[in-house]
């Protein structure tokens, strides 16, 4: 098996990445995908101590909402199980937002600041202290850094001839990324996911490219998409190293 991988980015920003990897086995591709979802840890609020809650929601409901707020995670500074403390104090009439959370660690901050936690009316007040803990998606979905992480086969589109002159052109829907005859990678969004838009009046054949996978990685903001991929690969590599060492003795 060829182990020299080729990676090519199609889309890339902080929270979103789409890239093609060549030379992968399906087992390895799936291992990376699963590791991104369940094995890369993120910080998330886990314990809440309420000082005052006179809002219309129960403590538990607010606790759940706080847990789902993504927090930026400095993965080099924390070990699984370590905690950071956050506090919130809002008095009505006002809405408590995720951005009102004050953190003890500058690196652990709400990744999004406009998530409404609870709307407070005149005389209502929410004051609490919360512990965020680093854990993995396997334990609870709130610790899952990757959102809608997946891959598809790269598909190659070859023009094999002209469509019959009087044939009805049926739409030929494809999703993901295609490789054209000129080895260009094209996002199917660019032609409305319909091959007849890109190759009008042509007959085309579509084949899977062996060993080439198009990954789409989106994160909730707790880590960057790039870091998520690298940490996922490392988590598999670390386990392999551990096994290698244990088998040797």
């Amino acid at each position, binding site marked *: 098996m060829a182990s020299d991988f080729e*990676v090519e980015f199609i889309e890339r920003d902080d929270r979103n990445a789409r890239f093609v990897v060549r030379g992968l086995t399906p087992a390895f591709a799936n*291992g990376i995908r699963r590791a991104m979802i369940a094995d890369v840890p993120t910080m998330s609020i886990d314990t809440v101590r309420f000082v005052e809650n006179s809002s219309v929601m129960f403590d538990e409901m607010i606790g759940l909402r706080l847990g789902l707020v993504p927090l930026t995670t400095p993965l080099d500074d924390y070990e699984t199980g370590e905690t950071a403390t956050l506090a919130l104090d809002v008095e009505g009439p006002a809405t408590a937002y995720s951005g009102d959370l004050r953190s003890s660690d500058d690196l652990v901050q709400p990744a999004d600041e406009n998530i409404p936690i609870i709307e407070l009316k005149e005389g209502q007040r929410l004051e609490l202290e919360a512990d965020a803990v680093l854990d993995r998606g396997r334990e609870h979905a709130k610790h899952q850094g990757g959102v809608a992480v997946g891959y598809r086969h790269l598909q190659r589109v070859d023009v094999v001839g002209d469509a019959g002159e009087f044939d009805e052109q049926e739409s030929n829907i494809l999703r993901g990324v295609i490789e054209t005859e000129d080895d260009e990678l094209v996002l199917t969004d660019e032609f409305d996911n319909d091959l007849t838009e890109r190759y009008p009046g042509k007959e085309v054949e579509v084949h899977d490219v062996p060993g080439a996978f198009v990954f789409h990685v989106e994160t909730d903001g707790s880590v960057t998409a790039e870091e998520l*991929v690298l940490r996922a690969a490392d988590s*598999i590599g670390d*386990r*392999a190293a551990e*096994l*290698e060492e244990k088998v040797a003795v």
Partner: protein
Amino acid sequence: MELRVIEKTDDELRMEIAGEDHTFMNVLKGALLETAGVAAATYDMNPEQSGGQTEPILSVKTEGDVDPLDAVGDAAGRVRELTDDFRTAFESAA
């Protein structure tokens, strides 16, 4: 990761790898099948609700003079190389 050898002969091995799931076991199995001297490799894992053995059990059968434990070591080393290569390729593209 806790290893427990259940059965071991010159060319067969059954081993429990506690604390792992499909994420790692399937990658390992894939690497084992590409390792020289391995005739067969698989793993078995039961869901939590089954109530019985829920940790994955790796089964390896080798041919020639290959010790199955060495084969597992080789495959694990191969997985580590693969992840390192992947990291390098990804970082250079990024």
